[in-house]
């Protein structure tokens, strides 16, 4: 089980990020999570949103290049060692993590949520599920 992440290309210039958030705001897109990676020349914003395909359309219409990537969304118990436990499982299964970031849950949530970009989503999912770690589908994520 994996979920869709949208990655957006941004030029490294003042206002580029704001142009994107404005397009998303105008398109009434609700963001669940965001992570930014940058070089001196350009940046890549990775987004978790409530409406993946709507977002892709909104971005395209506003002239942004974006791509969809399958990532694994994991519910991490909000206790010391929670994330460590998840990484232990992935490590044991030989899963390579390209990057990861935390996303927002709701205020009352007792869990944290992490997005993992791994080399093999299916393998990661089965390792996590058999170790009793909860992973999330698109709908659960949207419902957060």
């Amino acid at each position: 089980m994996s979920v869709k992440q949208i990655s957006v290309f941004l030029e490294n210039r003042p206002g580029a990020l704001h142009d994107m958030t404005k397009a998303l705001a105008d398109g009434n897109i609700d963001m669940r999570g965001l992570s930014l990676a940058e070089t001196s020349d350009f940046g890549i914003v990775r987004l978790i949103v409530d409406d993946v395909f709507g977002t892709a359309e909104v971005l395209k219409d506003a002239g942004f290049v974006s791509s969809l990537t399958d990532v694994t969304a994991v519910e991490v118990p909000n206790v010391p060692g929670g994330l460590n436990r998840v990484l232990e499982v992935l490590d044991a299964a030989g899963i390579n993590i390209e990057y990861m970031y935390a996303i927002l849950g709701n205020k009352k949530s007792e869990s944290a949520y992490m997005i993992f970009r791994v080399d093999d989503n299916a393998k990661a999912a089965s390792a996590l599920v058999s170790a009793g770690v909860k992973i999330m589908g698109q709908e659960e994520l949207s419902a957060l």
Partner: protein
Amino acid sequence: MSNYYQPEIETMPHEKIRELQNEKFLKQVRHAWDDVPYYRAKMQEKGLTPDDIKSMDDLHKLPFLTKADLRNAYPYGLMGRPLKDCVRIQSTSGTTGQRVVAFYTQHDIHIWETMCARAIAAAGGTKDSVVQVSYGYGLFTGGPGLNGGSHLLGSLTIPTSSGNTDRQIMFIKDLSATILCCTPSYAAFIGERMKEMGMTPDDIPLKAGIFGAEAWSESMRRDIEATMGIKAYDIYGLTELCGPGVSFECEDQHGMHINEDYFIAEIINPETGEILPEGSTGELVFTTLDKEAFPLIRYRTRDITSLTHEKCPCGRTHVRMTRLKGRTDDMLIIRGVNVFPSQIETVLINQGYPANYQIIVDRVNNTDTLDVRVEMTPEMFTDNLGVVNQRQAKLVDGLRSMLGLTAKVTLVAPKTITRSEGKAVRVIDNRKI
């Protein structure tokens, strides 16, 4: 067999063409001497009279004409006929500074349109073709030239002129255009727009495109051919000589046949003016053979190419010039290295980037800098920073091995580089020298 407009002339044996050229050449030199005082004075400076010119073998004795002469003689100084005999004026876009104004008699218009008719026929054009002319109409020679050629050939002509790209696509589709004529950068733009509209080559009836008025690369040709599902033919010309059609490609796509019954072509060393042997790369020089209003003897085009008389599979016997490497005006000298925009374009397309790019040259601390701005595309983008970085580095490597110098590559957002409906502005040179 190839499709010709005038087979008897286009496939005339080489010796016959030489005879015809010789006869016309002597008349044209006489015409310039008698009717163009500016050129007579240039000949006199070299101590020449028409009697010194006994055949084409004496061509090398004659003085060159350059853009500077055109400027000095502006507007009427190079005319070979009184204004009352002229029927048309065309003018250049002035991309290289000075505007050229050329004059035509009815005869001059006719030979120009004849050359364009040959070019359209070489691209497969017949009475049954529907030719959409998306070159600009007006002072620019592109529109009027191809329009006239298409009429002579008897094709149905759609004079859309340039611009309004969605309407261009609508006409191609609804009116079943089979041949499209425009600049290569506009063809690429139309192709890009078609893709955006979700159209594939199967959705349009186009079979061929005749693209010229700017230098373009072989890889850009293949790109346009794939996007539109057509065969793309190069065409060459200069307003000074008439306009497009001076030379054109046949289905073999290996160089453009120069209409030798109307021009003599030479290749010279641009530094010394010395004539180079066939096959050498150098500056292209033309002598008109049949022009009334604007005869030009040994006119230096500043275009860099080479010539070959090698037999062409299409059956045409007229000499071929290779794809333009660029205009001496387009050539950039960066850190002492000669750079043509078409070289940069080749690297971009080979690596999957769009042909829409911009080259920014500047000078920082007395060193030239070269910045190539390239648009990011959905095909080249991924969520992985490392991969995007690697692709960028590969582009820098590719440019280094093509140009012999290091360029900075800047990836920019889509559509941020201005699209051109006519000649593209590829180079911004900010150096203050």
